[in-house]
């Protein structure tokens, strides 16, 4: 990825995530990444509420200084400033898990919990092990089985690559349902509410 053009990543998990969500009157989606044209285009095929909350952008420049869970929680409560009756059917976390430390990730879980229902599904990336290089990328949904990957224009922030086991221990609101290891060491994970 040397320019702004997207590349595409086949996903064996996204179809299952959509299948698990099933039939809903109006799909409500949290995209914790950047608003990308392909995601808007994909979700515009159905009655949908698509909420973009670019957590990477929110924490860029602050990750090194913010150590207190209360400060993180205040930040995420501001980011998730949604009506109280909002319940997400799908949370697209992308690579959020790999650039939040344990304290921040716990705060994220606390802030997000009120907006989940018992069938909320999620998708994101962990890594095979902590030595895996985490790319600085933006992700979107191109198709129900394809993810678009673009280079992220913002400078990199601190990385906290985390395995599936570590993810489940510090992000207890979701359990991993399935995972697929990609060639670059990224571990694609589908999640359901715990």
């Amino acid at each position, binding site marked *: 990825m040397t320019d*702004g053009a997207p590349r*595409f990543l*086949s996903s064996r998990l996204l*179809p299952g995530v*959509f*299948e698990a*969500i*099933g*039939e*809903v*009157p*109006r*799909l409500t989606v949290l995209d914790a990444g950047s*608003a*990308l*044209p392909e995601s*808007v*285009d*994909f*979700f*515009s*095929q*159905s*009655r*949908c*509420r*698509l*909420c*973009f*909350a*670019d957590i990477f952008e929110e924490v860029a420049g602050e990750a090194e200084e913010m150590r207190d869970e209360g400060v993180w929680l205040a930040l995420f409560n501001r980011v998730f*400033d*949604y009506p109280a009756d909002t319940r997400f*059917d*799908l949370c697209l976390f992308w690579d959020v898990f790999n650039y939040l430390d344990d304290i921040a990730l716990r705060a994220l879980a606390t802030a997000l919990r009120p907006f989940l229902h018992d069938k909320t599904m999620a998708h994101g990336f962990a890594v095979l092990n902590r030595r895996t290089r985490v790319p600085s990328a933006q992700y979107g*949904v*191109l*198709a*129900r*089985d*394809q993810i678009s990957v673009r280079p992220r224009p913002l400078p990199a922030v601190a990385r906290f690559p985390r395995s599936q086991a570590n993810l489940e221990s510090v992000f207890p609101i979701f359990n991993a349902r399935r995972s697929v290891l990609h060639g670059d060491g990224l571990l694609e994970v589908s999640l359901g509410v715990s």
Partner: protein
Amino acid sequence: MFDKYRDNREEQSQAAKAAVSSERKDGPASATKPAAGSARTMATIGSTITIKGDVAGDENLIIDGKVDGTVNLASHELIVGPSGKVNADLSAKSIRIDGEVKGDITGKEKVLISKTGNVRGNIVAPRVTLEDGAKFKGSIDMDPSVASAGETAPVARAFEGKTGEQARTEPDTTLNEKKA
């Protein structure tokens, strides 16, 4: 969530309406162009104009200047030009954003944020398009069935979206529209 931008709008609305009255029959002289094929009248808020208050009208409008308040064009087209800076809730039949908007946007038919557009707010429209490079933060409420009058709104079946193969082979009407 953007109510703070709407202070004092009542007392300023009359001045705002007066400032928008510079109607042109031959389209705007600014760099912003109306949608392809349209020879219709476009009113313009020029790049040096600042308006604080409510803007309402019964014609198409281009905003190249600054507006703080609300903009309501009901059944007409609104364009925020590349130099436009708007702190306002916007409502129109179709809306194109080439500049900056902080506020909620309601498009009766469609909303497009172009590659130079930067929007922070919530969008409600049957169809929403982001071009490559567009910046957006907020939520988007979409209902494609509303755009087709008389159709019953479908229940969202998330898994019915296109596969990658379909996305590559089927014509994309939204993209075609953007090129027009």
